[in-house]
């Protein structure tokens, strides 16, 4: 049977950024350098649309091939009204498709990736899009504000011209309330240091070990690894515990210049790897969603990667405009 996997990808990183040190002088402690800023007229839907349009353009798929569109976010435009249908509508996808909206903190999109992959595998033909997009929320002057960024990633999943085959995937979950946002509240709360060991590390390490066992591989077998990036330190610590090197992490460490765009974090890290990966590369991706759970994936980059139109992401990030601290404090521009 034909393999299933990533057929194409796109991403959107907003035009503006701020140096983390201008948000808080202590941000360097968390390995942060810059974070992206979405303007007042952008939201998870607009960013998702940009990422999906680019994915369509770069992959060359036609609208008729799209059978499903999944949208994962923790900052959706509506509490009740799907964002997936808005994105599909802007793309021009007709009614004959399956739309899904997902929420699971920062791992909404990877949960969607698992389900979409299974769906496409069973379908036989066509492809689906999974979009992860967030205009990350944080309380003002809270440590979360140092890293809360904005971005969207989009993966096209199918069985034809696969550039990164999905070899295997697995998940772990528990009821661990490390980070949450109540209905009606515009800002999340979190458990401080509780977001570390019992939350992020416990799940990321467990899911990755579970995947390694499932595919019968060791860390050194992988060319690249991507962990969810709430800051610049946690993924490094996770890598060290699991036996991965900084070099294996390096291509995917998007948090340093984008910050943490929540549902887009792991996707953006993975897309950064795909932008430079070689045929035959083995890539491990483990996401983390607060509340909590981790999805872990093993991808094998194929020969098709050579034919894929790559190289947009670095340009997109390089061509941004810096926002000063004074401009940043004018909340009307960024809310």
């Amino acid at each position, binding site marked *: 049977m034909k393999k299933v996997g990533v057929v194409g990808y796109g991403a959107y990183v907003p035009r503006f950024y701020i140096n983390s040190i201008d948000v808080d002088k202590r941000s360097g402690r968390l390995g942060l350098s810059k974070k992206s800023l979405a303007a007042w007229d952008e939201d998870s839907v607009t960013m998702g649309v940009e990422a999906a349009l680019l994915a369509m353009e770069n992959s060359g798929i036609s609208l008729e091939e799209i059978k499903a569109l999944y949208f994962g976010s923790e900052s959706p435009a509506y509490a009740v009204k799907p964002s997936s249908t808005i994105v599909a509508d802007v793309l021009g996808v007709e009614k004959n498709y399956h739309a899904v909206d997902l929420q699971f903190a920062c791992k909404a999109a990877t949960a969607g990736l698992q389900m979409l992959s299974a769906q496409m595998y069973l379908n036989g033909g066509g492809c689906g899009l999974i979009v992860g997009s967030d205009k990350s929320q944080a309380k003002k002057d809270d440590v979360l504000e140092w890293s809360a960024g904005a971005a969207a990633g989009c993966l096209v999943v199918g069985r034809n011209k696969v550039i990164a085959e999905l070899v295997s995937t697995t998940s772990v979950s528990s009821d661990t309330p490390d980070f949450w946002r109540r209905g009606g509240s515009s800002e999340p709360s979190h*458990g*401080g*240091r*509780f977001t570390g*060991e*019992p939350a992020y590390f416990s799940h990321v390490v467990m899911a990755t070990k579970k995947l390694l066992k499932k595919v019968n591989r060791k860390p050194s077998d992988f060319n690249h690894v991507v962990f969810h990036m709430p800051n610049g330190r946690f993924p490094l610590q996770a890598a060290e515990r699991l036996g991965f090197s900084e070099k294996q992490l390096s291509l995917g460490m998007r948090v340093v210049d984008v910050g943490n765009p929540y549902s887009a974090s792991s996707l953006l890290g993975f897309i950064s790897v795909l932008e430079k990966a070689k045929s035959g590369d083995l890539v491990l991706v483990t996401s983390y969603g607060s509340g909590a759970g981790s999805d872990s994936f093993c991808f094998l980059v194929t020969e098709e990667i050579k034919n894929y139109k790559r190289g947009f992401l670095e340009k997109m990030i390089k061509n941004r405009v810096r926002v000063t601290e004074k401009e940043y404090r004018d909340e009307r521009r960024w809310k």
Partner: protein
Amino acid sequence: MEVSDVVVSGVGATKFGELWDRGFSDLVREAVGFALNDASLSIKNIDALVVGNMLLSQINNQAHVGAYAAESIGHKESSFTVEGACASGGLAIRQAYLMVKSGELENVLVVGVEKMTDTPIEEITTYLVGASSLREQFVGATFPGLYGLMQRKYIKEHGVDGDDFAYVSQKNHFHASKNKKAHFQREVSINQINESDMVADPIKLLHCSPISDGAAAVVLSGSKKPKKGEVLVAGSSQAGDSLSLSYRKKLTSLEATKKAYKSLVKDVGFLNEDVDLLEVHDCFSIAEVMALEDMGFCKAGKGLSLLKNGFGKLGSSEVVVNSSGGLKACGHPVGATGVKQVVEIVDQLKKRCGERQVKKPFLGITHNVGGTGATVVMHALRRAE
């Protein structure tokens, strides 16, 4: 019952640290389990439970903490809570000591316990400053701020090098690196301490004891004739001073320590040179320095040079100060600290401390402070002969 001595018949403590998977009741049960096992007693043998705890009623809206802890361990006789801020544990020990010494009760169980790390740091800081006076709180004082004032005054008054305060944390981390139950089990260097972030000038991060979870328990029993090798509470003392720092005669020493120690020395009858072990209240490094001076181990203003020359360090000094790692490195679950100090001295006297064992210890002193020195409670523990 006529009692000649109060024996420490059993001790035990949990690990101190960020114990995410254990709540208040779990900590109580664990520490009590260790202590009862050590004493070869069951909960049915316990006549009263005394709990040292500061924060539970604020954090969890659970008052009646003595009854709550008693319920956790299936104790159905009398129980009560003692609160004296960071001296809660030491005060609980003292109450138990007095109860047993009076002959009224035979076996009293003391548990010092605090669960702090589930609470955001900003809230904990606010709760902890409740140990100071309202007047100080209204002007925005925090505990690092109050002790920072004391350290600043000390440096000016004695003309010392502020960097030398690092010798306190360095020593205590060295000791804690040999204590499997300590919150921090790694050594830190003088440079690391002096380069750590400023918290409240001149107090730096690595001068400060951490926010920790933990529990410690002790069983005190009345004895007509202690056996050789048993550990006795040879003496207990308590003294006080104004709650507000601004009402004190001096900011660079604690009158309450001086009074409590003088009373202890008089009751028990010993000299400083007889002391083998000290567990002193190093909530901040300045506190340990002042404690050593106030107890007369050196003159005022000489504490830093004393420590810099190796005083108190395991392997280099005749008296070992904070072999547990102290509050700084072993951790400071507020209500548990005063009880843990007793646990440490008892374990040392019974030669159960492994890598950090002091050779031939006979007499140990505990020093537990509430607030910035409004309450000081001290105990002398020695081996029965």
